[in-house]
C-alpha cells in the first residue's frame, strides 16, 4: 500500500520536474530567437521562403476542409431550422460559425498536422544527424537560420490562410444552402449581415495569429530539442502535432472567454 503511495508521489514529482524543465528550455529557446532577431539579413529571405511554401503547400487542403465545413453547417442548419424560424437565419449561422470558430480552428488543426509535423521532423532530423551542430560550428546561429524563419513564416501565412478558409467556407455554405433549401441570395446575404460585427473578422484573424504562434513555436521547440535517433524524431513529430492541437483548443477557449465576453 505505502509503496504504491510513494511510487505515486515519486511519479508525480518526476512529472512536475519534467514539465518545469520543458518550460525552462522553451523559454530559453524563445530568448535565443529574440537574440537572433538583429540578424535580419539572414532570417528575412528564409522567412519569405517558408511563408511561400506554407501558403502554396497548404492552400488547397485549407480550402477543401473549410468548404466542407461550410457546406455541412448550411445543410445541418437547414435540417434543424424548420418551422417558424426565418430561413435567413441559415445565412447568419453559416457566416458566424465559419468566421468565429470553424475557419480558424479547422485551419489551425489541419496545419498543426501539416506544418507542425514537418517542422518537428525536419529540425529533429537535423538535430540527430548533427546538422544543427554543424551550423553552430560554422559560427552561424540556428535561431536566425532555422527557427525565426519558421515561426515568422507561420505568423505571416497562417492568418492569411484563415482568411481564405473563411471566405471559401462561407461561399460553400451559401452554395449548399441554395442547393438544399428554399433560400434566396437576398435571404442569405441579409442573414449574414444582420448579426455581423466587424470585430468578428478581427477576432478570426487574431485567432489565426495565436494558432500560428502555437504551431510554429511548439514544432520548432520539439524538433530542436530532439534526442536519440530516429525514434526521437518520431516522438518529437507526434509530440508536436498533439501538443500544438491541444494548445490550439485551449487558446480557442481562452480567446473566446477573453475577447467575446
Amino acid at each position, binding site marked *: 500500500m505505502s509503496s504504491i503511495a510513494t511510487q505515486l508521489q515519486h511519479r508525480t514529482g518526476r512529472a512536475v520536474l519534467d514539465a518545469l524543465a520543458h518550460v525552462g528550455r522553451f523559454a530559453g529557446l524563445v530568448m535565443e530567437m529574440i537574440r537572433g532577431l538583429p540578424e535580419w539579413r539572414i532570417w528575412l529571405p528564409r522567412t519569405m521562403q517558408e511563408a511561400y511554401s506554407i501558403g502554396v503547400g497548404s492552400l488547397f487542403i485549407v480550402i477543401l476542409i473549410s468548404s466542407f465545413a461550410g457546406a455541412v453547417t448550411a445543410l445541418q442548419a437547414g435540417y434543424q431550422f424548420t418551422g417558424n424560424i426565418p430561413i435567413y437565419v441559415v445565412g447568419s449561422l453559416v457566416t458566424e460559425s465559419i468566421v468565429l470558430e470553424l475557419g480558424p480552428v479547422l485551419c489551425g488543426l489541419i496545419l498543426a498536422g501539416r506544418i507542425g509535423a514537418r517542422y518537428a521532423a525536419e529540425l529533429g*532530423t537535423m538535430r540527430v*544527424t*548533427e*546538422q544543427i551542430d554543424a551550423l553552430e*560550428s*560554422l*559560427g*552561424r*546561429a540556428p535561431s536566425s537560420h532555422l527557427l525565426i524563419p519558421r515561426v515568422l513564416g507561420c505568423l505571416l501565412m497562417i492568418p492569411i490562410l484563415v482568411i481564405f478558409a473563411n471566405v471559401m467556407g462561407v461561399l460553400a455554405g451559401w452554395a449548399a444552402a441554395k442547393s438544399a433549401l428554399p433560400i434566396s441570395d437576398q435571404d442569405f446575404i441579409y442573414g449574414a449581415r444582420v448579426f455581423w460585427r466587424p470585430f468578428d473578422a478581427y477576432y478570426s484573424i487574431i485567432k489565426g495569429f495565436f494558432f500560428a504562434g502555437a504551431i510554429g513555436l511548439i514544432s520548432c521547440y520539439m524538433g530542436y530539442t530532439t534526442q536519440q535517433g530516429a525514434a526521437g524524431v518520431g516522438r518529437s513529430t507526434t509530440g508536436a502535432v498533439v501538443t500544438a492541437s491541444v494548445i490550439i483548443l485551449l487558446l480557442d477557449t481562452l480567446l473566446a472567454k477573453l475577447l467575446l465576453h
Partner: protein
Amino acid sequence: MIEIKNLAKRFGATVILDDVNLTVREGDTLALLGPSGTGKSVLLKHIIGLLRPDSGEVIVDDQHVELLSRKDLSTLRRSIGYVFQNGALFDSMDVFENIRLGLTDQKEFRNLEYAKERIAECLRLVNLPEDTQRKMPAELSGGMRKRVGIARAIAGRPKYVLYDEPTSGLDPVNSDIIDALIMRLDTELNVTGVMVTHDVRGAFRTADRIALLTGGKIIAEGTPEEFRASDNPEVRAFLERDFELASS
C-alpha cells in the same frame, strides 16, 4: 594554441571524460587515437563549444571557450573548421550551398563570384569533380559526403581545423589525398589541427604529435617517434592491434 585542462564530462551517470589534459601548439597537427566509444568526438566538441564541460577548462586562442558569450563564441567558431564524423551535410541544400555556408566571412559569403571560385577550389582540394556542386547530399556516397564535409570546413580558411575521422570509410586513394591535404594545410597554411583517427598508419605520416585517449584520460602524448618507441603497455597494445589491422 589549444589547451585543455582537467576536462571532465559525463552523460547521466556515465563518465566519458575523466581528467583530460592536452595541449596543441600553434601550427601543429595532433592525431588523437583511441578505441571507439572512448569520447574522442566528445572531446572535439568541447574545443568548439558544442558541449560544455562539467569541470575543467578549454582554452583556444587564449579564450576560455566554456565562458565565452554567444557573440564571442560564434566569432571564435568562424576561425575553427569542424569536420563531422558523418559529414553532417545540410541535406536540404546542394553541395554548392553546403560549402558556401562554410564561407564564414559574411562578405565572402555574399560575393557570388568569389564563392563560386572558392567552392570550385575546395572541391578540387578534396578531389571531387566539378559537377558535384549541383548534387544533393542524398545523391552522394558516404566517402563523397565526408569529403564535402571537409571542403565545407576549410572553405572559410580557418586557423584551426578539427577532423573527426576524416579518412574512415574512404578508399585508399582518397584516404591518401585527404592525408596529403591535411599535411598541406598544416605545412603551407600553418593550420593548427586535431585529427581523430583510427588510421594509425595515416596518423604517423601526417601528424606532428600523437595522443592516445582511453578511460577518459590522455595516457600518452608525444611525437610519432616517441610514440613508436613508447614502452607504455597500453600504447603498445593499441599500436600493435592497429598495425595488424592495417597490414592485414
